[in-house]
């Protein structure tokens, strides 16, 4: 539906914490099937922008339109459940005492059960829904290369493996759009490759669009078509990834701060 409209459109979003304008009148859009990047020096307001777009924080002003629907002011869980727009966190990654499969089943539950009341059911229907989720979870675990460690509590795995679990979790509900907050931070290069592969797989084969905050410029240029640069809460420039990294203003923002 609404194939001509952008998948996500954020207009004039602002958010202040006291006197500090964390995000100042930023507008961006994400097209269907696109992988867009969001970069900027530390403290430029990227994470606040994410929080305000996904319902974790309330924007002071601005509108968030997902797939033609105004979702401004919706809670984080409603945006995930009804909007199928999911987000990752930098530090909060997995349910640590549960294994990979349970992590993924939890991620899928609210998208399979029609209501809260239905989740209290133990009947045949409920069991078959969970079995379906388990099958999908196993497929995704295999794809993420976590098959050998699938019975371990997630908290015992490496940071990179936990990020892969988080990533696989977000694919459970067949999302339209995923917002990734520094997916490559603190993981080793071998896993970076695997995360890149999974992002590209999800994009190409599952049709998921992405908005990625990332400091690793090589990753940004290799997966993102379009990049938006934030600096001190405002949009500095927007354009194709290769042009952006050549841009004088961007260099100054990063170096001159």
């Amino acid at each position, binding site marked *: 539906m609404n194939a001509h409209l952008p998948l996500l459109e954020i207009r004039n979003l602002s958010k202040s914490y006291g006197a500090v304008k964390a995000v100042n009148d930023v507008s961006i859009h994400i097209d269907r099937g696109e992988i867009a990047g969001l970069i900027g020096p530390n403290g430029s307001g990227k994470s606040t922008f994410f929080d305000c777009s996904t319902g*974790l924080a309330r924007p002071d002003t601005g509108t968030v339109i997902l797939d033609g629907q105004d979702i401004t002011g919706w809670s984080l*869980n409603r945006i995930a459940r009804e909007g199928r727009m999911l987000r990752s966190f930098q530090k909060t990654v997995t349910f640590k005492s549960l294994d990979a499969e349970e992590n993924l089943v939890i991620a899928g539950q*609210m998208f399979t059960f029609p209501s809260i009341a239905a989740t209290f059911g*133990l009947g045949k229907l409920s069991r078959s829904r969970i079995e379906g989720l388990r099958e999908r979870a196993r497929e995704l675990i295999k794809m993420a290369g976590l098959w050998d460690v699938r019975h371990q509590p997630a908290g015992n795995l490496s940071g990179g493996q936990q990020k892969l679990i988080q990533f696989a979790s977000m694919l459970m509900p067949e999302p339209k759009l995923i917002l990734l907050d520094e997916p490559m931070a603190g993981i080793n290069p071998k896993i970076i490759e695997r995360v890149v592969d999974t992002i590209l797989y999800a994009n190409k084969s599952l049709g998921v669009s992405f908005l990625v905050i990332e400091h690793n410029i090589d990753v940004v240029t290799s997966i993102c078509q379009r990049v938006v640069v934030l600096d001190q809460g405002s949009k500095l420039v927007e354009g194709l990834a290769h042009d952006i990294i050549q841009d004088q203003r961007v260099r100054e923002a990063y170096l001159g701060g």
Partner: protein
Amino acid sequence: MSLTETVPQARRRDLRIPLAVVLIVVALAAPYIGSRYVTHSLIIALIFMLPAHGLNLLVGYTGLLSLAQAAFFGIGAYTAGLLAVNYGTPFYVNLIAAALVSGAAALPLGIPALRLRSTSFVMCTLGFVIIGQAIAKNWVSVTRGDMGLSSIPKPYFELGPLSFTVSGTTNFYYLALAVGVLATLAVWAIVRSPAGRNMVAIRENETLAESLGVPTWHYKLIVFMISAMFAGVGGCLYAHYLTVVSPLTFQMYYSTTMLIIVLGGGAGMISGTVFGSLLFVGLTEALRVAPEVRMIAYGACLLVLVFWFKQGFAPLINRFWNAIGGVK
């Protein structure tokens, strides 16, 4: 070689079913094995197991520390007591009413309290017990104030043409056992359901659960209400068993006892709550005959717990259970 191989094989036989049968037989025959005082202690343990089950859903599975359990226990006790005294209603009506009234009371209390974060939430729930006691003391026209309700009738049943009264310690034990078993099964069903998995997700990481579409606020409120319903059922049994309900039913000591049952038994494990009730309530009640050692034994028990079994006794029980089942 073949000899040494058969020996561990023989030891590996699954002893769980025989043990379960023994436990069931002991539970059923308890009034005839022990003295009347032992039966009384077991009844008290079963009564406190109910609010503890509810609290375990809240603390152990959803990760919300609440001290309000005694308030809902008291509300249940007063509901059942008032119905029985004023209207002479059958036991099951009182039981259901106690559960519903306690659950309903949890709604207006839970809505503001659950907006608070960790420590503030605990302090807020602490207030509910005090408010409950104040109401029980001062709403004299209904609760009869400090005098409380007395001579609450024995539980009686009316099933079609059949009606009977549960009188005597032994019979009350079976009633409490039946309610306790049903409640334990109910907890098991909740925990095993997809909602139970969402509860654990909230305990593990609320923001992450939220980001995966789990309406954490609704779940916390529902679990808070369910937990209060279990407390209400316990309060109903308490009122009928002691035949007296006073404002002292709302006391912090009860809330802490319920918390010790859950944490000492093993939070987030059903077997822990069952074992904890027997140990911390049944045992201390049984030791009432020796008041000089009672509190010392209780204290020693808590010390052992704090130093050697930080997760409560349930992991120990599980290990034992697996060991006798031949599972490594």
